[in-house]
């Protein structure tokens, strides 16, 4: 039998054994006495006995051998099963790194299940870039300082492998190099993902224009982003390990009103504004709780809010200026309209007086008493020209008065004090409907309204808004069909959007944006022109109640007005 690395060879076949036995028999026969017939009876009997015993002994031995062989075969099968199906690749190499044997797992890893790859150098399966790693590993192994190594190998597919080696003696010749190969691609992938995440995080951290720090429980800086260097003019490395107050305030302890100290107690975000020369910073501290729920550190952010502060100040200044201008405009509007009323009263009053005086004169003068050539002129002047002129004056005065009244209403809408509260829109609608009942009943008009959510506004304003929209719907109804108004509402976050939809005349697309303009009156046949302030006034009122109003319309089909008010 021969030994090789795979273990003892299987016993020779039965035939080979037989032939060996015959050879040995012939050798033994030669050793027997020349004359076998000279055996005495006793001798023969003894020999016979011995042979029998020998035979039985042999038979017993043979049985034992067969059992041992079966056991051996089972052990071998188990061994190969373990060896081949091991979850790691197992290779033996000679001292030069040439593959001697490999288990099935290794063959699978290297994509060599169907071809023997014994005799090939292991380096053939290592990526060129990682050959140095393997070389180093081998050197360490030779110095008995072997460690595991990780490198990329090629096989069925490229994979990350961890190699563990040991050098051991062999029965004869150079020592054997045993290597296990584990596929660690998944672990490497996970590692790479973790690294990428860390890199992304660091990048983000550094990209922030705010100074972001992590402080430990003792207010010591443990991490800081790149913005730190820009603001404090020192590299992050120099600052790590210092207390926040040393860096920010240059003091030996926390300053008064320190947001970090406050956050330690409140365990909530704390902030502080900090002036530094021309600049203003905001310090925001978010405490971090440890496993025990107690303060274990903080995220400390310093933002340069100089620009924001400037913008805020500018915004405030503009708002102030705007409200001044608005006040000026309002008072201008108010004063001019009032001042215009004074001369208007004179024009109105005196033109009326003139009209009356003309009538009086006409009564007093008998045209028949006048000379003929003057009779006609008198008749023309007193009967036609003066009344016509007065009519124009009075109509114009009337129009001016309307405009002034409208402007005054608008001006007042901006001055009325609002009482903001919860408004029950259902009740408001009912009140409006009670006032319009007669109009509705007379024309057979119908109002559909479900349960409407309430809003937060001024009750009088809400009443005005819906009154105006409903009376508009009524005014611009299509007289060929019965008016149907649908009031509905939809809650949108913090607001309610009410809609008032009608099946009236609708509007031309070109007119739709104009309805919000002051003194615009749609040219609708059969509808008396109004003052042209209804909707502008409604919009002003909606504005004052922090709301929005808009409309959709289709000529010949109807209009929908939307009113959005705070909830």
């Amino acid at each position, binding site marked *: 039998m021969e030994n090789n690395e795979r273990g003892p060879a299987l016993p020779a076949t039965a035939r080979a054994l037989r032939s060996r036995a015959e050879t040995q028999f012939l050798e033994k026969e030669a050793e027997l006495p020349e004359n076998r017939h000279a055996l005495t009876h006793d001798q023969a009997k003894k020999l016979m006995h011995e042979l029998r015993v020998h035979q039985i002994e042999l038979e017993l031995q043979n049985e034992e051998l067969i059992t041992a062989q079966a056991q051996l075969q089972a052990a071998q099968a188990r061994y190969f099963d373990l060896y081949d199906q091991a979850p790691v690749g197992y290779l033996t190499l000679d001292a030069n790194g040439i593959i001697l044997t490999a288990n099935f797992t290794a063959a699978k890893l290297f994509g060599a299940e169907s071809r023997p790859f014994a005799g090939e150098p292991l380096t053939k399966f290592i990526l060129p870039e990682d050959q140095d790693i393997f070389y180093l590993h081998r050197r360490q192994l030779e110095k008995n300082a072997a460690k595991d190594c990780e490198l990329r190998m090629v096989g069925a597919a490229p994979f990350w492998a961890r190699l563990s080696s040991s050098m051991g003696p062999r029965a004869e010749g150079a020592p054997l190099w045993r290597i296990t190969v584990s596929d660690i691609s998944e672990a490497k992938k996970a590692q790479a993902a973790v690294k990428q995440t860390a890199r992304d995080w660091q990048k983000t951290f550094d990209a922030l224009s705010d100074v972001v720090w992590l402080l430990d429980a003792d207010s010591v800086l443990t991490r800081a982003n790149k913005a730190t260097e820009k603001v404090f003019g020192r590299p992050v490395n120099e600052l790590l390990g210092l207390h926040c107050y040393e860096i920010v305030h240059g003091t030996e302890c926390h300053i008064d009103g320190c947001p970090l100290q406050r956050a330690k107690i409140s365990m909530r975000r704390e902030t502080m504004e900090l002036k530094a020369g021309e600049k203003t910073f905001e310090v925001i501290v978010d405490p971090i709780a440890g496993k025990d729920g107690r303060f274990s550190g903080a995220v400390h952010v310093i933002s340069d809010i100089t620009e924001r502060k400037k913008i805020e100040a500018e915004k405030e200044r503009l708002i102030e200026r705007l409200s001044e201008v608005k006040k000026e405009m309002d008072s201008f509007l108010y004063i001019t309209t009032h001042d215009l*009323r004074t001369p208007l009263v*004179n024009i109105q009053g005196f033109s009326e007086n003139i009209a009356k005086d003309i009538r009086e004169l006409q009564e007093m003068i008998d045209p028949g008493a006048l000379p003929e050539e003057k009779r006609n002129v008198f008749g023309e002047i007193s009967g036609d020209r003066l009344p016509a002129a007065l009519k124009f004056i009075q109509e114009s005065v009337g129009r001016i008065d309307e405009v002034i009244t409208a402007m005054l209403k608008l001006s007042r809408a901006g001055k009325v004090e609002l009482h903001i509260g919860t408004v029950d829109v259902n009740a408001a609608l009912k009140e409006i409907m009670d006032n319009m009942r007669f109009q509705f009943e007379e024309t057979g008009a119908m109002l559909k309204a479900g349960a409407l959510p309430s809003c937060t506004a001024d009750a009088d304003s809400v009443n005005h808004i819906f009154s105006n929209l409903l009376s508009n719907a009524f005014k611009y109804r299509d007289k060929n069909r019965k008016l149907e108004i649908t009031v509905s509402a939809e809650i949108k976050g913090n607001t309610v959007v009410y809609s008032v939809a009608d099946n009236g005349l609708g509007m031309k697309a070109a007119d739709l944006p104009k309805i919000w303009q002051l003194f615009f009156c749609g040219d609708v046949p059969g509808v008396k022109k109004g003052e042209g302030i209804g909707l502008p006034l409604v919009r002003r009122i909606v504005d004052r109640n922090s709301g929005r109003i808009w409309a959709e319309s289709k000529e010949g089909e109807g209009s929908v007005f939307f009113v959005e008010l705070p909830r």
Partner: protein
Amino acid sequence: MEEKDKVRILLVEDNEGHALLTKDLFRRVGVTNEIVHLKDGQEAWDYISGKALPVAGCLMLLDIRLPRLDGFELLRRIKADPELKVMTVIILTSSDDPKEMALSAELGCAAYLNKPLQFEKFTQAINKQGLAVEILGKTGAG
């Protein structure tokens, strides 16, 4: 009724045109009561506070926007004076501002009328005050 017993109308008005229109109206409807035209609040105050007036026999038509002393201030003074406060004061203004209407009522005016003065409204106002007979009784105007 003797001329001296008739209600005296005090017209406090800075605008000549408005004053003329009001006087004209009374003339046209036949009101013959004495009409005293006072051109601003101060002149009116001097007139009513300087001498012993038969206050109850005075009816004041008062404009609001007036030079020197405005209508509100004059009304306030009248209503704060123990003797003058019985005087009937009708605001006659070109403004229909609800705030001004409210303030006038609060200060104690008898009525608030808009210019140009309409006789029907004036009649309604004085009827409420029980002055109609004294002003219009004999004339039968209205």
